[in-house]
């Protein structure tokens, strides 16, 4: 849907006539740190899922299975709120000096 159309096909004023389009956009590209979850210690309380401002925690059958890194912006709220301290914010690999 977010195709690069010519200007005269764009809706007026950058309005988006289709809501919920952020699933199509990589909004996590500017992240400098990423959450790394020690899943073996996770109790699946879903506090990280509830606090995440970008709905980036992936849950399957009531259990946390990972993070959607296309939408996680690396804010670190999850790591701060996790009662088991099993989320660590680690530098993005690409940003780590060789």
């Amino acid at each position, binding site marked *: 849907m977010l195709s*690069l*159309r*010519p*200007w*005269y096909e*764009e*809706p*007026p*004023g*950058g*309005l*988006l*006539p289709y*809501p919920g*389009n952020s699933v199509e956009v990589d909004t996590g590209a500017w992240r400098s740190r990423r959450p790394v979850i020690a899943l073996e210690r996770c109790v699946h309380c879903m506090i990280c899922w509830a606090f995440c401002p970008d709905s980036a925690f992936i849950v399957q059958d009531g259990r946390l299975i990972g993070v959607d890194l296309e939408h996680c912006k690396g804010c670190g709220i999850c790591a701060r709120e996790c009662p088991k301290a099993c989320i660590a914010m680690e530098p993005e690999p690409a940003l780590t000096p060789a």
Partner: protein
Amino acid sequence: MALAVSSRVPPVHGLGTPVALDGGTLVAHAMRQTRPDVVAAYPITPQTVITEAFSQFVANGEVHTEFVPVESEHAALSVCIGAAAAGARAQTATSGPGLALMWELLGVASGMRLPIVMHLCTRALSAPINILCDHSDAMAMRDTGWLLLFSENGQEAYDQAIIAVRLGEHPQVLLPVANVLDGFIVTHCVERALLLPDEVVSEFVGEYQPAYALLDLQRPVTVGGLDFQDFHMEHKRGQVEAMARAKGVLEGLFQEFAEISGRIYRLVEPYRLADAEVGVVVLGSTAGTVRYVVDRLRARGVRAGMLSIRSFRPFPALEVAAALAEVKAVGVLDRALAPGASAPPLFSDIASALAGVGLSKRLLGWVYGIGGREVLPQHIEGVFHTLADPSVPPGLVGWLGLREGR
């Protein structure tokens, strides 16, 4: 009407009930008749006459508008933007410093393509502080993407307040419109004018049918989204195209309005210009003074004429060039300054309109009326005399009525 009764009284003709009202109250009547869903405004001289009169119409139940007495002009335009995005017909009014406080939102309104109508009662920008008329506020919003329609008197301000609603809301336009009336000169002077019947105006403007609206829950939309380098330029290109299309739409609306009012408006208004050797270009209420001087000079055999610019944005460059094509010397009157620029704003536009069609013409400019400085018929006569004097070099000649000393 064939007899020139007295040029000092602007010709009021056409349909409607005669009233004696100041321009501000006339505009408030147009607001009442165009039935905005939301009006948000903050008092500021000389605009306050409009808001006062309109809020009384609301209090009396004569119009069912959500009137929001906001805490600032920044809030006034913000409320209008939110209302217009929600799908409402929104209007506001302001002057000089109030417009300056709206600045951030001016581009938001036009960039989001929201057809808000603003009645701009022109006032000098501080400092030194001044409440009187000049066009420094209107010129400061020149490049913000708003349509700018100047009016000569209360009748025109009233008529344009009605036309502006249709213009902005037109699906080919979708832009905010500023209806510009000169502070005090038009806003406060009581004039004879003709009020159209309520039902005629309400039929002319109709109901606003927004293509997209935040309150349309069946078709949800996102507005004001982040618009980076891969989209912003396309959206700005579309906005500029809408401004260009507004010219034709406005001409069509003038025709439609003539049918209900008997009053014929054009993008630019020539007066005795067809065979003129010397012509003056002007914006706003000073056109009345220039018309009076043109008549006086014509009576003495001077081939004088005038071009009054109604649609300043979009600027009808081709129409301007065509109107001035046969005039030997053109004088441009600017009621605003552009410090450090090659010329004041209107002069620059006239010069580029002429250059755009390859017309080389004797072009002279004057600054006048800054901070409410009186412009008198003898000043305008002096302009015409200078235009006719080939020994005066072209360019900016001077400031009308300035104490030059020496």
